[in-house]
Structure formats: C-alpha cells, structure tokens
C-alpha cells in the first residue's frame, strides 16, 4: 500500500478530529420537515453529492488545493462571496475554524494565505480542507475522494445519531454510493467557479434553528 493511500484512509476516517461530526448539512431539518425519510435517505445523500458537493465543495476544495499565498486568500474571499446565505457562510467558517484548530494541534502547516483568510473570518471549510489535504501529502484526486466520502459518511452518521437509520444499513448504503463518489470526484478546470445557485440542501440549511442537535 502506498503512503498516500494510508494517509488518505487516516484523513477520511470518521474518527479524524475536524469538527464535522456536529454538522448535518441540512439533513436534520430535511428530516424534521419530512423532505427525506428512512427510505429516501441514500437518495438524499446522493443528491447532495451530485449537487452541493459536486458544484460547490469540489470546486472550492480544488482551488484551496491548487493555490497559495495571496491567490489562495483571494479564493477564500471568492468562495465566501458565492455563498448565498449568511447562516451558511457562518456555519462553513465555523467548521473551517475547527479544521484550522486541528491543523494547529497536529502541527500541520497551513499556507499563510489560508491563515490570513481564517483571521479575516472567511476560512471556509471546503477550501481549508483542500489546503489541509495538500499539506498532508495527498494528490488532488485522492483529496476530492476523501472529501466526497467524508460528506456522505458524515450525513449517514448524523442520520444514525438522529435515530432514523441503522449504523450497519448506512454502511451498506455507503458501499452502494462508492461508484458515484468515484465518478464525481474529478478535478475541475482551473477556471471553474463554485455555483452559487440555490440548491435543495441549501434551502434546508436556511430553516430556523430551534431545538436543533446539529450546528446545521
């Protein structure tokens, strides 16, 4: 096994501390509102991967992976400007903060352009994840696979903690989603921009936050 594979497995592990376990990325609200149920959970995760992850997170992450210095700071700003909703920007920057805290504690050096963005309050998770995974020695393709898998796994894990899915069933669903993840985790062109268009999961993210277990 290559060193890069071992690293990727560690970084995609659900036990890797980066704060994401406290995010459901809209699933909690979608469940509460009946937009998704036990039976349609895997479809909801697949839709989230095809839309929000593929059109937004993937491109944001690739920029974070590829850029350095001022260009990287600028990319964080661009991604910030492309997030349509204030609560979404705040949650994403808070998740980014946790990843920066993890990197600091692990003594993994984040690019100065990323540190500047975090200090300015726009250290968004998806971009920071790209910076972080490059600093850990992954190639871009593996970094994208790690990100997509983490998103799917995180959503299923939230579903398990919300009591709507079994821990074993969700592993079966995750196995079934692997081909989709492989298909979607393709590096974008350098000039691609994240799509700021509102997506179904984004609408779920905007719901009021009363009585919530997850950050979003």
């Amino acid at each position, binding site marked *: 096994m290559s060193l890069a594979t071992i690293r990727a497995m560690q970084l995609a592990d659900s036990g890797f501390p980066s704060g994401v376990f406290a995010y459901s990325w809209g699933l909690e609200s979608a469940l509460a509102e009946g937009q998704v149920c036990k039976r349609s959970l895997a479809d909801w995760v697949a839709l989230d991967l095809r839309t929000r992850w593929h059109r937004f997170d993937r491109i944001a992450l690739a920029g974070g992976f590829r850029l350095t210095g001022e260009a990287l700071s600028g990319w964080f700003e661009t991604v910030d400007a492309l997030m349509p909703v204030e609560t979404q920007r705040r949650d994403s920057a808070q998740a980014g*903060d946790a990843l920066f*805290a993890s990197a600091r504690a692990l003594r993994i050096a984040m690019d100065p352009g990323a540190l500047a963005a975090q200090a300015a309050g726009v250290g968004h998770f998806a971009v920071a994840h790209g910076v972080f995974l490059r600093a850990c020695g992954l190639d871009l393709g593996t970094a994208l696979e790690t990100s997509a898998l983490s998103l799917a796994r995180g959503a299923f894990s939230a579903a398990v903690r919300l009591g709507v899915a079994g821990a074993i069933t969700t592993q079966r669903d995750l196995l079934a989603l692997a081909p989709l993840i492989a298909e979607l985790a393709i590096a974008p062109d350098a000039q691609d921009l994240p799509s700021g268009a509102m997506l179904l999961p984004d609408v779920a993210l905007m719901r009021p936050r009363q009585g919530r277990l997850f950050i979003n």
Partner: protein
Amino acid sequence: MTAARVGIGGPVGSGKTALIEAILPLLAEVGIDTAVITNDLVTDEDAERLRKGGQLAPDRVRAVQAGACPHTVIREDPTLNMAAADRLETDFPGLDLILIESGGDNLASTFSPDLVDYWMFVIDVAGGDDIPRKKGPGILQANLLVINKADLAPHVGVDFPNMLAEATAVRGGGAVLPAICRKGSGIAEVVAHLRREVLFK
C-alpha cells in the same frame, strides 16, 4: 494562548450551569478575566441562560452544538471547542480563564487533555449515594469532583458525610468538594481550589 481552560462535566441536571453561575461573581471579585463555552445538547439554551444572567458580557459566552453527542465534542473530536476557545482568546486578550461546560452526559465522560488543562466533574446527591461506588472515568479521573445539591440529602435518603467519604476513597484521596450551588454554599472553596491548582492567581 495563555488562558487556563477548565472543563466542567457531569450527568444531566447535576448543576454544571448552576456552578458556573455561582462561581462567576467570585471570580470577577478577585479580577479573574473569564469567558464560558457551553456545549448544549439542543441549540444554545445554557448559553442563553448565562447571557441573560448578566454576569458576563453576552459575547463572552459562546455556544458549541454537540451533534447529538456531548462526549464526542469534548473527547474524541474537541476541535470545535478548541476553535471556540482560540477565538475567545483572540477576541479578549488577557483572558485568564475559559470554562467549558459539557452537555450533560454519563459517568464515563472525560475531557480530552488536548482541550483542557484541568477539569471538574459535578454529580448531585439526588442521583443517589451509590454514584461514587459506580466509579466511572468521570468520577475517578476528574481533577476535582464536586458533589452538588447537598441540601437534598435528607429528602432522598442519602447519608451525605458517608457519600463524601466514599467519593474520596474511590478517588484515592483526590479532591472532592461538597456544594449547594443554588445557595452559594461551598462555592468559595471551589474558587479557592481553582485559584490554587490552575490559575495561580
């Protein structure tokens, strides 16, 4: 980062927030610059209660949601709390103390040494005098065990001096302090303990 980070854990309803409310005025009196992070199970109820209490400026109370898993956010993955504490230190230079209240959990919860310098575990008399005998990492490993709601002992058939003695014994002589957070009794001792053991101030 120079502020001492002190965790407060313990079962649901044992009086963690009540302890914070009780010690804040005493800390302020002796000039210890303090902020609080709460890990509520749901939204930010405890944070709101502390803000409304008015003992700290509202921005000195930060809430971190725990994703339905209060022990994960203080143990397996404390990064959200670490990030919140780092932000507090940036926003309030000169901070001496950050209190981190865990969401109510069970006797097995412990704080990650990555997150805190020191932690207390709060249990209450009404939970039963067998709690110390059940041991559990929270009871055994906390730097300080606080047994709260001593006032309820006669009502729940607990021999309080015996409960204190048993707790001290299972902890191998580790610090145990009695309290009635609601009436402020035992609180000066908790603050004196923190100043001596953690704050050096």
